[in-house]
């Protein structure tokens, strides 16, 4: 039966009304989707299949679209390098001269720091593996500040992983799929980051609002912050490692303390994603490091006697704290050996204080010596 011959064939429906009904249906769908969204929960299942598929498609497409701009930028940079090579050389020489002086200071300070750590038996954090990625999209609006990086689950990235640029903390991963990760920037309205003021150790929560300079909320104490104070991650709550550079505190036009982000100093083309989950991961890594240590020699170094140079060379390197310059490729979970390894009788920090305490009196390490080879 043709439509015209049906009982409903002559039914006249005003188009304006049907359009209104269509609008209401679309609004109901949008409201339902908005209410069910849980993107900021840092849970894989909350991110949703739709977003994962969207990110997996958007990453290569945007990467291809961004390629001409990237090539042009590289070309311009090469041209500038060629034209300004002499002035750049002069500047670098001056910088190197200054850096040499700082290197000597740094070696001396590290020496002191390591001794203190040994004396206190302080547990230091082992290096965290990182993954390098390129950002391919950038949303800069008031309601969403995210970036898409071209590395995903295949590189062991998980939601919650901190992301850094060469200058400082950028944000955290909120969603991950094959070949792409969505990074929630510090400036996003949903971003909350526990931070501390380097000078006073005062704690605060860095709260994004869609603008370029996030706010410092929940500051405690009398004058906890001054203009120009450095802001670092505090590590509180265990979601981020402690001490990652965030930026510099400034007073905003609205009278609130805000942060000029360190990551804004340069374009965020490449990022490093720290494969950090929480502090239990660090403890596990530390245990594995202890397991890897060779067993102590039958007769340890006698207090007050200088350690022979040969022994110094094989001394295990002290674990370094997390720094922005530490890049370790992600290691797959190595299968443990079938034969149990002999564990050291005493843990590393317990052995070292005696030698450390004696070291300054006997042979203070020369400033120019290779730092990894100096026994403490």
């Amino acid at each position, binding site marked *: 039966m043709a439509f015209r011959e049906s009982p409903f064939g002559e039914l006249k429906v005003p188009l304006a009304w049907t359009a209104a009904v269509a609008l209401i249906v679309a609004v109901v769908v949008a409201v339902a989707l908005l*209410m069910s969204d849980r993107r900021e929960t840092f849970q894989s299942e909350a991110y949703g299949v739709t977003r994962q598929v969207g990110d997996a498609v958007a990453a290569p497409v945007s990467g291809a679209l961004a390629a001409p*701009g990237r090539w042009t930028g590289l070309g311009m940079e090469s041209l500038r390098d060629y034209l300004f090579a002499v002035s750049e050389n002069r500047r670098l020489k001056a910088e190197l001269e200054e850096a040499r002086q700082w290197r000597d200071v740094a070696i001396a300070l590290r020496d002191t720091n390591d001794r203190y750590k040994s004396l206190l038996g302080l547990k230091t954090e082992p290096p965290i593996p990182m993954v390098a990625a390129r950002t391919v999209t950038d*949303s800069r609006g008031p309601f969403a500040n995210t970036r898409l990086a071209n590395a995903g689950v295949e590189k062991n990235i998980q939601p919650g992983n901190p992301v850094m640029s060469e200058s400082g903390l950028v944000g955290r991963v909120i969603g991950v799929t094959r070949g792409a990760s969505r990074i929630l920037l510090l400036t996003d309205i949903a971003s909350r980051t526990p931070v501390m003021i380097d000078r006073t150790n005062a704690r605060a929560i860095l709260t994004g609002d869609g603008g370029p300079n996030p706010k410092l909320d929940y500051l405690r104490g009398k004058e906890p912050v001054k203009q120009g104070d450095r802001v670092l991650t505090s590590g509180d709550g265990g979601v981020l490692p402690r001490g990652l550079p965030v930026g510099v505190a400034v007073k905003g036009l609205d009278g609130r303390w805000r942060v000029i982000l360190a990551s804004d100093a340069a*374009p965020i083309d490449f990022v490093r994603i720290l494969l950090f989950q929480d502090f239990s991961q660090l403890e596990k890594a530390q245990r594995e490091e202890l397991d890897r240590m060779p067993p102590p020699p039958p007769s340890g170094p006698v207090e007050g006697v200088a350690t022979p140079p040969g022994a110094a060379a094989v001394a295990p390197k002290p674990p370094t704290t997390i720094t922005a310059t530490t890049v370790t490729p992600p290691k797959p979970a190595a299968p443990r050996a079938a034969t149990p390894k002999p564990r050291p009788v005493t843990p590393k920090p317990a052995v070292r204080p005696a030698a450390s305490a004696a070291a300054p009196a006997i042979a203070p390490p020369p400033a120019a010596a290779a730092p990894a080879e100096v026994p403490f």
Partner: protein
Amino acid sequence: MSLSAARPLDPWRWLGFPMLQCLGWTLLFGIPLRVFTLQLPEPVFCMVPAFAWAVIRPSIMAPFGVLLMGLFLDIFWGAPVGLWALSLLTAYGVVLLCRNWMVGQSRPMMWAWFAAACAIASLAGFLFTRLDARASPSLIAVAWQFLATILLYPFAHRLIDRFEDADVRFR
């Protein structure tokens, strides 16, 4: 006025093609490019068809087109899913309601109407974000995006000019 009297207006020409164009421009402006250390602005290209479709004529398919564009923006920009969809639909609905006042007005006046529609979408986004994240977005950031978006009116004018008289019932 009924469905049976409707003169077909090719949906692909006035709905499909403009929608794809807007999504393409959104993709292009989403690349992380800095020109002389300044970032590109982030206008809401999808406001152009959302405004123009409501001015051209009421339609059953247009709201779903606006919904799709909004969902695309949410997924591509990483915003809460439904935020831009709802904001654009709010602006579309208001323009549809006020359509009889707008049609046939001069270009500067229509530009002002477009700015009002953009303001409604921005305000809706601001309020929904406030409810969703329990925090206020930066008004300066909202204003920058609003200013970048209202500059797109010439594209909306071109779309309206092309299809306004296509359906004689809605002249």
